[in-house]
């Protein structure tokens, strides 16, 4: 363990310097203030992949790496819809996921919101064409409160999207 700390100390900062990304820092501050005001400091997100290519999931996972560290701002990806304020939907909503997606939404307690992530759910600029195996989120009649565009949206874009969602509601 001593060996570890000696070597760790020699490496200094592993990510970027704090002052390097001013824009992101300003976003973070606003995001934290909004979550503090509107969600008592904790926004719980239930992520549901309804048939994506896994890139949106990879970017959501990247949100918890030391560069972005979303937990610090009070945003948590939770394990159950019962704990969630927001359902974050990625993917095209396949025939096989349709009912499971709706089950998840029904299990969430009010008040609840739906955010669509990426170009897939609305199928507007998605590469995927009409298919017998794809239903699309429109067919579910879920009310989409906000759309975070991108294929996939980068971690920065997801943070911006969440802020805009918070300002809207």
């Amino acid at each position: 363990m001593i060996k570890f700390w000696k070597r760790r100390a020699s490496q200094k900062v592993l990510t970027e310097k704090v002052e390097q990304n001013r824009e992101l820092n300003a976003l973070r501050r606003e995001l934290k203030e909004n979550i503090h005001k509107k969600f008592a400091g904790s926004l719980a997100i239930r992520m549901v992949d309804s048939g994506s290519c896994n890139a949106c999931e990879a970017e959501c996972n990247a949100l918890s790496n030391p560069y972005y560290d979303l937990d610090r701002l009070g945003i948590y990806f939770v394990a159950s819809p019962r704990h969630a304020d927001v359902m974050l939907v990625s993917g095209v909503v396949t025939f096989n996921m349709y009912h499971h997606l709706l089950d998840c939404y029904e299990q969430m307690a009010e008040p609840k919101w739906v955010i669509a992530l990426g170009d897939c759910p609305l199928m507007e600029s998605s590469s995927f064409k009409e298919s017998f195996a794809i239903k699309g989120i429109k067919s579910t009649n879920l009310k989409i409160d906000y759309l975070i565009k991108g294929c996939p949206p980068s971690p920065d874009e997801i943070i911006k999207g969440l802020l805009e969602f918070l300002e809207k509601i």
Partner: protein
Amino acid sequence: MRLIARYAKECDDYFEVITLFDREKSVDKLDKKSPSMESLTAQYPSAIWFERKIADDFGISFFNSFDTRPLVHQEYFPLKIYPMRKEFRKKELTFSKYRPYQYEAIEGDGVFQVAVGPIHAGIIEPGHFHFSQEGEKMLHQEVRHFYKYRGIEKMVEEISLKEARPIIEKISGNETIAYQIAFIDICFQSIQKEYPSKLKYYHYFLLELERLIHHFTDLGFIPNDAGFSTALAYCSTISENLRRLMKHLTNHRFGFGAITTTVVTINNDYVKEMLLKVEKDIEWFEDWIMDIPSLWDRFDTTGILTKEDAKSYGTVGVMARASGLEIDCRIKNKIYQESGFKSLSQKSGDVGARFLQRIEEVKSSLTMMHAFLKKIEKYEEKIEDETSIDGDYHTFIESSIGELFMSIDIKENKIERFFVRDASHVNWQVLHTMMLRDIIADFPLINKSCDLSYAGNDL
């Protein structure tokens, strides 16, 4: 022999079932009125998903099969609909009445079932795992997938290669470079041109970069599933750096649209500096992580995939190599051979072996990337407007998970049949054999150590 794939296609008067092994290929012609044939499952257990999928897609039945349940067509899918037949042209289906799925389950005194998924507790793709438990001990597990089934094989039929490209590159986001390379290889074959080695250096460089990103993500997540989250913080920083490098090179963090017939000049010094930094990072990481006994207590002897099972299920990729099977598409590739490729493998086949295999592969990829980098130069060629020659083309590529097989049948410049077999499709099927010595709390760790794709498997 190793079974690579079994798939069907519809011809004018008959169905064709193609069975591809590593050493031979057989084609069976079946009558359209009542298509049926002998199952391969007695000899090749991983034939079962291929055959169940053919049955769902084409309505071809297999006799002497131990499992005839639907695979892709789940509870609400209408009966007697065979989407891969040419006569099926519907763009929308309505849900039929709910039909329960019969899970493989062990019953008896004190034995109970644990159902997990399709929606999991973290940020993960959807899939279902069904456990038969005797207390903590796993007696049996069934892996049930195809929740992400988007009908991609049908979607790309009757369109041109150019139109199919954006769909094919987004089949599996983590392996997009591999899918794009397989696709461009087939494009070159179809116009009867050689895939220029000047392009290959750049493409293989990106493929190894994709492998680095994927492996570093796993090197973080595997310890995280054993309760050691510091490793995730460290490795996710490195994979973020590498994603940014991918963005720098291709203008996209995953490399969507990156594999074209053009190579622009890249800033070699900057890239080289990044690679040297990662080399130091992995060295430091290895030195640190090998010295944590409580972590290795979880890794060693957990989730053993025996060499025999790996062989009989036709396992490929990192999983096969960690169990001592040296299966790697890069072995026979001349450019890889010239660039310092070494075939690597482990013996024990446990979580620890798969973890070590990834560390070794990262180091080996870095060596090759330096060699590729020296050879990357500006190049431009246009092939988009050329007419494809009718025929059946196929290719193999080593994605970050394992061997990827892609086959495209082209007729009059349109795709007649598209088939792809992700490494995950065979590897998922062997997963249940790895659970028998462990308790259910080990499952997430075992599953993560394999890190298979759901999107690439479900199509």
